């Protein structure tokens, strides 16, 4: 084979977001991202990049392109309506001190 290899560095491998479960009983938490040729390599790289000090017992990777995110421009429309609904919190209700276990 004399054809030169295509230079893969000219374009980046897909970006993956990495989620780590730090110990069983806890949820997976986003820790960062990395590039990998495929999902299996992303898991291997995530192990080297994000768990060098026993930070995890389980890794999820997902292609960044597959994540659907809310638009920061719509944050107000999405989240403001909850602001005036303080009656959703227990502290909204005044209960006399003598009443226990409530």
């Amino acid at each position, binding site marked *: 084979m004399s054809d030169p*290899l*295509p*230079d*893969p*560095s*000219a*374009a*980046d*491998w897909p*970006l993956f977001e990495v989620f780590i479960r730090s110990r069983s009983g806890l949820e997976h938490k986003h820790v*960062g*991202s*990395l*590039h990998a*040729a*495929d999902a*299996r*390599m992303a898991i291997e790289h995530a192990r*080297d*990049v994000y768990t*060098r*000090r026993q930070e995890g017992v389980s890794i999820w990777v997902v292609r960044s392109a597959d994540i659907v*995110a809310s*638009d*920061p421009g719509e944050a107000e429309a999405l989240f403001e309506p909850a602001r005036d609904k303080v009656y959703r919190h227990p502290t909204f209700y005044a209960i006399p001190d003598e009443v226990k276990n409530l």
Partner: protein
Amino acid sequence: MYTQALDVHGREPVPAAAAEVAAAAARFQARIDADEKIEPKDWMPDAYRQTLIRQISQHAHSEIVGMLPEGNWITRAPSLRRKAVLIAKVQDEGGHGMYLYSAAETLGISRAQMFEQLLSGAAKYSSIFNYPTLTWADVGAIGWLVDGAAIMNQIPICRCSYGPYARAMVRICKEESFHQRQGFEIMLTLARGSAAQHAMAQDALNRWWWPSIMMFGPSDADSKHTAQSMRWKIKRFSNDELRQKFIDITVPQARFLELSIPDPALRWDEATQHFSSGPIDWNEFHAVLKGSGPCNRERLEARRSAHQAGAWVRAAATAHAAKQAARALASQEARQA
């Protein structure tokens, strides 16, 4: 982990022209003033974006190039314990480069572009890595002084206004403190060893002291971007403040080692309650940054050849991924047929 204030060498911020942009910039500054964090998809002034891209990518390059001087001693570490520690430290530096490249990418520059900037010589990295590691004591001096200076620079960046950079710095700072302690331990062992070992430690301190002091970047008077970076809360302390802090904590450590700091003007100033030190040779700093340091050419050459030598591995991984994807698709279609 290795950051260096290089801000004096960047481009000038672009002045905002339109009134709309000015209004958006004012809202942006108000968020910063209220200590809100800025996230990747939020509006930000172009100059803020460009400043961060420059700073984070230079920081990432410094981590990557920073593996070279210490990597030089992995095969010759004096014991298995020292070798295992040094491998772990160098691997951490590589990891730190990865965290930082990812943070920079959230601002719209690609990994490939950043590699290109490093390999072409267009990008700057910390000037400290253009000095050679001549003896084993240099590995100790780097951990103690270079990582010590880096920690001093980096801890305030954990509170930087840009979320992804701040998060990367938190992770890095957590991992960093073993780097400094293992370096000090090497220096302590040598300083308390034979006369020849003590002399080796002193020689390493002699060569690494001034370059470490220069890691804090140009003096405040010459650092024209400091004021803007502070307004944006990218930077929390000036170069000279951090440098002074580093000198104040390091001088007693050197005394404990019974090593002398190569600065005849160094003395305790009762009035200021700080150590006052001699003048810094900024000509050397600028010469090394511009490419005339002892190892600039060698470092870039090492990065370029590693990148070229790894090309077939990247190509093979890409081909393997494509083949696996095609097979998965074919078996899926076969099941559906």
